[in-house]
């Protein structure tokens, strides 16, 4: 019997079109735009000026405060300007514009292909290196990794959980990474284990990736303390709390962190980035992005430098199909449509899905028929229909009591609703309003 989380979840069509396509390196663009906020937390402070020459891997912005991350140049060239850029939502944020000249890496990066399993750094040095290298959670949430690796006094981490679930339909970047960089990932896992001072690491992979499970299981036997667990396919298994429940049976209580049940979760992509940062001294400036869609002529998995315009990636994948209705940053379940195709690729962009027009249009909204499907699929035991109504009517105190802030925005409710009600849209609105309300109350 395969493991999975007990309550809720849905089974969207998988559509993993690009699962068998190896990772390709995307050619360098003429210029890159590197946003200064590619992580959760305080935006970074630019460390270069207009006209400066930068090398690949050089720090161009430093993290401000604890929950922040360094940002590195992904190319070598001249800083054109530091100006506002439109991010994927169309709103402005600050970014460093660099004109590409050649590809000269900073000398400290070890560019050899040799896999080095011997970890020389101590726990504290690893955490420091993660901060310096700008490592953030590459599953999509982009939470700075050094924060997750720093265990506060009084708490104890017992298990490291590695997320190779990739439960979003279409996306295959983690899948390909596991197949092609398995040993690096597992070395990264042992580095994370050393940083957290744990003896045990559980690697969860959904059963729709049998090749990755076989490959990782074989490799894991050569490492100490690692076990690979195949998991039953169910969305949203890749969510932190659901994965912990599936693998360990421990439930993270409402309002608590995974560390409260002794677990820390990292993505396989993050483990790979940690390996490169610690063993090769290579900061995070490129990542695997899946570009996919039913009408694309050449969908694939590309290793892309951050700051590359999305349009370049679409070009490499065979150009924008005529019937494109929406371009989604992320997977189709949790991703958001982008406002224009010139947005830069950022650390948190795990995939881009080009949805054909007829599939992208939402159905007509009909009245709620009280079928309670949304309640049965909610993995965190909420009542989505009620939360939607409360948010719509502005009854935020009541919404807070109904634990709206526990919602992780997985979208199972909207996916399953037979009346096509925009449940998640309203819950997001209510959630942000409740968070704002609570913050204001705490200030008083």
């Amino acid at each position, binding site marked *: 019997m395969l493991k999975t989380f007990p309550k809720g979840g849905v089974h969207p069509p998988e559509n993993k079109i690009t699962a068998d396509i190896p990772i390709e390196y995307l050619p360098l663009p003429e210029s890159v735009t590197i946003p200064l906020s590619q992580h959760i937390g305080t935006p970074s402070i630019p460390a270069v000026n207009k006209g400066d020459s930068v090398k690949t891997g050089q720090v161009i912005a430093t993290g401000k405060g604890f929950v922040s991350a360094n940002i590195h140049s992904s190319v070598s060239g001249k800083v054109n300007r530091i100006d506002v850029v*439109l991010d994927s*939502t*169309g*709103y*402005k944020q600050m970014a460093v514009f660099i004109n590409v000249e050649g590809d000269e890496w900073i000398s400290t990066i070890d560019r050899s292909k040799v896999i080095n399993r011997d970890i020389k750094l101590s726990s504290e040095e690893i955490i420091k290196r993660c901060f310096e290298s700008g490592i953030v959670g590459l599953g999509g949430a982009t939470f700075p990794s050094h924060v997750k690796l720093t265990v506060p006094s009084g708490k104890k981490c017992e298990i490291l959980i590695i997320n190779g679930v990739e439960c979003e339909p279409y996306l295959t970047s983690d899948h390909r990474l596991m197949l092609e960089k398995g040993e690096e990932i597992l070395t990264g896992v042992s580095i994370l284990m050393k940083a957290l001072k744990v003896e045990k690491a559980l690697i969860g992979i959904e059963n729709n990736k049998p090749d990755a499970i076989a490959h990782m299981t074989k490799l894991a036997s050569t490492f100490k303390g690692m076990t690979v667990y195949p998991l039953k396919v169910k969305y949203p298994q890749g969510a932190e709390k659901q994965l912990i429940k599936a693998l360990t049976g421990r439930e993270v209580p409402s309002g608590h962190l995974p560390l409260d049940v002794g677990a820390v979760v990292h993505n396989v992509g993050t483990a790979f980035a940690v390996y490169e940062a610690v063993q090769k001294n290579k900061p995070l400036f490129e990542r695997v992005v899946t570009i996919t869609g039913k009408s694309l002529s050449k969908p694939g998995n590309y290793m892309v430098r951050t700051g590359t315009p999305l349009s370049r990636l679409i070009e490499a994948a065979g150009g924008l199909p005529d019937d494109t209705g929406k371009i989604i940053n992320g997977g189709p379940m949790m991703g*958001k*449509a982008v*406002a*224009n195709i010139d947005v830069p690729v950022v650390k948190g962009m795990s995939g881009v899905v080009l949805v054909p027009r007829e599939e992208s*249009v*939402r159905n007509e*909204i009909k009245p709620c028929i009280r079928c309670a499907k949304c309640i049965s699929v909610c993995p965190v035991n909420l009542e989505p229909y009620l939360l939607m109504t409360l948010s*719509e009517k502005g009854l935020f105190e009541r919404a807070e009591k109904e634990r709206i802030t526990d919602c992780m925005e997985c979208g199972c409710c909207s996916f399953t609703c037979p009346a096509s009600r*925009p449940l998640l*849209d*309203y819950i*997001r*609105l209510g959630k*942000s309003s409740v968070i704002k309300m609570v913050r204001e109350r705490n200030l008083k």
Partner: protein
Amino acid sequence: MSSTVLITIFSLSLLALVSAVILYFIAQKFKIYEDPRIDEVQALLPAANCGGCGFAGCRNMAEALVKADNFEGLTCPVGGASVMAEAARILGKVAPVIDPTVAVLLCNGSPEFRPRTSQYDGASDCRISHSLYLGETDCSYGCMGRGDCERACAFDALHMDPATGLPVISDDKCVSCGACVKVCPRHLIELRKKAKKDRKIYVACSNCDKGGPARKACNVACIGCSKCYKVCEFDAITIKDNLAYIDAKKCTFCRKCPTECPTNAIIELNFPPRKPKLEVQAETVNG
């Protein structure tokens, strides 16, 4: 038979009497004194319970008025000066002078001027659309036309125009309660001082971008060129973040700035048609 009736009447009367005595003492014990003037003032107020005064409803406003030492900061925008004066008479206080205001929309981005660059098919709610992305046009400051203000208006004063996708405010019905001002996620509605014959001159734009991007997104955007600022003789215009603002309290309706604006971002409403140039100047001097 008759004795049963008598016993019933007697026992019930006794019960009623005892209850009445108990209730009388309880009423005495838990008596709450309420200023009778609260009822009087409440009767004056419009009973719209719109919250425009900042209180939960008219009763709370009446209580606040009776309690207050002076009327500073207390106004009923719906009732206006006459209601406040009447309340002041009852309570023996001085009503402050209130300039009546009316809601105006600081955006003129109809599809004709502001081309649609994407299509939004999510929940029809401005707050949701605003939190998701910049909207269907390239202007991240302008009206998204999902009608939150229309739903918030309790006075039927605000309706979405399907042709322009913008709300149209009826000056006669607007009581300037401020419900639409609060609900608009992009803060596009302003309560401006009402002028005679509902005349208005204001910058119908909220775009803080530099001239280039602003103009690219919308033909009638304020580009912050300062032309209006230079032509204004009354210090009524300020430029902040590439956006001009006309102070309604200082504006004398000289009508110089609207013609000066290169993008027609300054709107003049309810004025007689312009006369040939010389006469306009003469009229300004006289009036």
